[in-house]
């Protein structure tokens, strides 16, 4: 699972002398400490989530009784299933739309030669870096005159045309596909569309998977967008948005707030468990070599 990076680790001599052993111990205990540091907060959240209402208030780190029912009880406290549905609607539709619109554009930016290609690519990078708050005012104004504020559509629909980050990431993947494969397809009489569908898409599958994962998680985690368009319409809230007010609504019940916090983290962990390589590879590709 970790072969991608491990294979190229700098060769280091095995610890032969006492200095080498000390170095080995120091580096590995530091690594272990770092790993713990990152993992412990989630462990605390989990332990708090299964505590009783009264114990969650205290200094105790370990639950006296394990209240697994807390994970079910939160569904009574708030319409979590409705929020889950909204979150899924947003994330799945946006990801589907992104795939439809971004794959051809990324192919054109990576494998077709045309004047202005570099300039357009730089515009994509610029759009990717733009804080979403910069364009929020006119966009809200437009969606509001279309009567779509109060719904998640202003967030979903743009993905069917343009998503800067996805186009960028897919382009970075497709560029690495050897030109000879695309040329061979053209020799065989493929149109560009056929070359894309039959040659490039199958070869870029890991990249497409990574881009889809990031798109799904970005929208799943999004807070600014849903707050902007649906903040006043609790029926349209996503899980992220609902979680921010769950603590407020039930501020005495730490255990339940933490149970919801854990539930909302589940998709990320599950996706990561199944597609660790895609994640790592995708993240690596976002690091622009300048």
């Amino acid at each position, binding site marked *: 699972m970790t072969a991608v990076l491990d294979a190229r*680790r700098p060769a280091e001599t095995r610890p032969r002398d006492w200095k080498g052993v000390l170095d080995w111990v120091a580096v590995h205990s530091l*690594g272990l400490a770092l790993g713990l540091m990152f993992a412990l907060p989630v462990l605390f959240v989990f332990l708090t989530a299964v505590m009783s209402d009264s114990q969650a208030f205290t200094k105790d780190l370990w639950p006296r009784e394990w209240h697994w029912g807390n994970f079910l009880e939160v569904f009574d406290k708030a319409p979590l299933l409705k929020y889950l549905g909204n979150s899924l609607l947003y994330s799945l539709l946006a990801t589907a739309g992104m795939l439809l619109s971004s794959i051809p554009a990324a192919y054109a930016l990576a494998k077709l030669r045309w004047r202005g290609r570099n300039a357009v690519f730089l515009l994509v990078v610029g759009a990717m870096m733009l804080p979403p708050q910069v364009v929020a005012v006119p966009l809200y104004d437009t969606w509001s005159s279309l009567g779509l504020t109060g719904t998640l559509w202003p967030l979903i629909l743009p993905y069917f045309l343009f998503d800067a980050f996805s186009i960028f990431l897919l382009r970075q993947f497709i560029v690495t596909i050897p030109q000879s494969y695309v040329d061979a397809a053209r020799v065989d009489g493929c149109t560009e569309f056929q070359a894309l569908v039959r040659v490039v898409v199958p070869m870029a599958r890991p990249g497409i998977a990574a881009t889809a994962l990031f798109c799904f998680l970005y929208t799943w985690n999004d*807070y*600014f967008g849903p707050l902007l368009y649906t903040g006043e319409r609790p029926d349209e809230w996503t899980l992220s948005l609902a979680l921010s007010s769950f603590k407020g609504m039930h501020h005495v019940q730490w255990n339940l707030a933490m149970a919801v916090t854990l539930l909302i983290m589940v998709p990320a*962990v599950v996706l990561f468990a199944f597609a660790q390589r895609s*994640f790592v590879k995708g993240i690596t590709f976002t*690091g*622009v070599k*300048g």
Partner: protein
Amino acid sequence: MTATLERVDVPRTAPARGRSRARSRHRWTVLAFMAPAVLGFLLFFGYPLVATVGFSFTEYDLINPPEWTGFENYTYMFGDKLFRTAAYNTLWFVVVLTGLRVVFALGVASVIARLKSGVGLIRTLCYLPSLTPPVAATLVFFLVVRPNDGPLDAFLGWFGVEGPLWFSDPAWAKPGITLVMLWVSGDLMIILLAAIMDVPREQYEAAELDGAGPVRRWWHITLPNISPVLLFGAVNSIILALQLFTQAVVAGSAASGSADATGSTKDLGFPENSTLTFPVWLYAQGFRYFDMGYAAAMATVLFIVSFAATAVLVQRMRKASYQEEGGPGA
């Protein structure tokens, strides 16, 4: 290119008439592939960017038509105390968060790069938090650092240190948010780790022969080799700091204990406006007070600043892409 390929490479070898037909077909293909993206870019970036600047010279509340007021929104900024607070808070994050994030991610990546066993596990542990939704990550830290009862306080207590009030103390709310951001910096860490792994092995071996220890090898070989990726990390972190919104809003509303986190403005920036970042104040002005003109003026300022940061990166990429053009497989 081989001869066979050249023969089918229509634009270059076919007679004039066929060439222009192939060329126009090529043009239509590019257009068809790019059309949705171009349309989307114009609708969701081109138009709103121009419109933001336009709105910034008006007074507009979404209901009545915009009214031209010239530079009034911009002159108002200088007198707006909370504008200065928000600008200061965001500047604080740009400086402190960017610095710490790059240094921290580089440190963690450097340690992981030197591990000989357990790399996969440690790397996963360090990366996973970066996938948590920002709202959840903020609440996680709210639990961990809560005064008196929190695990961090208990930990500090072992050393006889009394922890600060974190999100309830104006002096510690921003450092608290910085902690959250460091906890989720695993993506940058993975990027840097990959860059460190890409450093040619021979350079280390040569340095080792010359008697350079691990620290000197890191300083003289690792760092110079990954400096382009470090630049990307720095620009990326600046952009992240400039648009810091979710963590600030959630930390503020959680600490204030407000019952209505999404609908009100009273807990934005809690405590004492210490978490009122530039985007939070922009959001409050535009979408709570419906002073769209003023929000647009703030957005224009934010655009100019983030454009400057991005320009640095784009400049580097342009240089790199020219080099790429010259080489094969561009």
